[in-house]
C-alpha cells in the first residue's frame, strides 16, 4: 500500500463521516464545524491529486472565509430571536431515496470508466503554469470574477444593512 492509497482511504473516511454529520446533526453550529472538517478533508484530496495551490485556496477561501460568514450569520440570527436555532429534518426517507437514486445514476456512469486509466505524468509544478494561465488566456475571466465578487459582496452588504 503506497502512501497515497493510505492517505486516500483516511481522507475518504473523514470526508464522508463529516459530510454525513453536516446533514444529520441537529445543532446548526455543530453542522458548520463539521462542514469545516469536510472542507479541509476536500483540500487534502486536492493535495493527493498534486494540486497544493488549490489546497491553499480551499483552506483560505472556503474553510476560513466561508466558515466566518456562516458563523456570523448564525450568531446574528440567534441574537435576533434570543434562542438557540435547532434544526430538524423532514422527509428523511424520501430524501434518502432520491439521494440514493442520484448516486446509483452516477455510479452507472462510473462503472464505465476504464479501471486502469493511468495518471498523466507530472510535468513539474502545476502552480506556475496555473498562474500563467490566469494572467494569459484567462485574464478576462479572472477580471470578470473580481467584478462578480465585488458586486456580490456589495449586494450582500446592501441586503444586510441596518434599517435607517
Amino acid at each position: 500500500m503506497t502512501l497515497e492509497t493510505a492517505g486516500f482511504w483516511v481522507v475518504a473516511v473523514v470526508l464522508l463521516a463529516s459530510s454525513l454529520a453536516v446533514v444529520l446533526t441537529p445543532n446548526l453550529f455543530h453542522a458548520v464545524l463539521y462542514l469545516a472538517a469536510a472542507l479541509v478533508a476536500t483540500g487534502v484530496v486536492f493535495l493527493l491529486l498534486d494540486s497544493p495551490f488549490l489546497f491553499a485556496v480551499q483552506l483560505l477561501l472556503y474553510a476560513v472565509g466561508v466558515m466566518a460568514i456562516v458563523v456570523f450569520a448564525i450568531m446574528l440570527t440567534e441574537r435576533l430571536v434570543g434562542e438557540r436555532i435547532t434544526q430538524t429534518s423532514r422527509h428523511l426517507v424520501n430524501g434518502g431515496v432520491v439521494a440514493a437514486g442520484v448516486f446509483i445514476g452516477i455510479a452507472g456512469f462510473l462503472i464505465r470508466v476504464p479501471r486502469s486509466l493511468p495518471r498523466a505524468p507530472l510535468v513539474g509544478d502545476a502552480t506556475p503554469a496555473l498562474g500563467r494561465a490566469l494572467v494569459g488566456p484567462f485574464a478576462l475571466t479572472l477580471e470578470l470574477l473580481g467584478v462578480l465578487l465585488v458586486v456580490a459582496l456589495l449586494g450582500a452588504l446592501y441586503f444586510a444593512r441596518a434599517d435607517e
Partner: protein
Amino acid sequence: MSLTAYLTLAALVFAIGLFGVLTRRNAIGILLGIELMFNAVNINLVAFARFHGDLLGLVFTLFTIAITVAEVAVGLAIVIVIFRVRRTVEADRLDLLRG
C-alpha cells in the same frame, strides 16, 4: 488510487449533500448541503484535470471556488433579511411568493 475511486468519493459526497438539501428545514442547513455538493463537483474537476494532465480543470476549480464564496455571501445575506422580516428561517414557512 484510480480515477474511479476519486469519482466515487465525489459522487457519495454529492449524494449526501443532496440529501441534506432535501431534508433540512432550516435555510442555513440547506445552504450547507449546497456547499457539500459544490465540493463534490470540485473533487471531480481536480481529479479529471490530474488524470488527463490538463490544466483547465484546475483553472475552472479556482473559478468555481470563488463563485461559491460569492453565492454563500449573497445567500446568507438573504437569509438574514428573511429572518428580520419573518422571524424564522424554516424553508417550509417561507411562502411569501406563493400565489
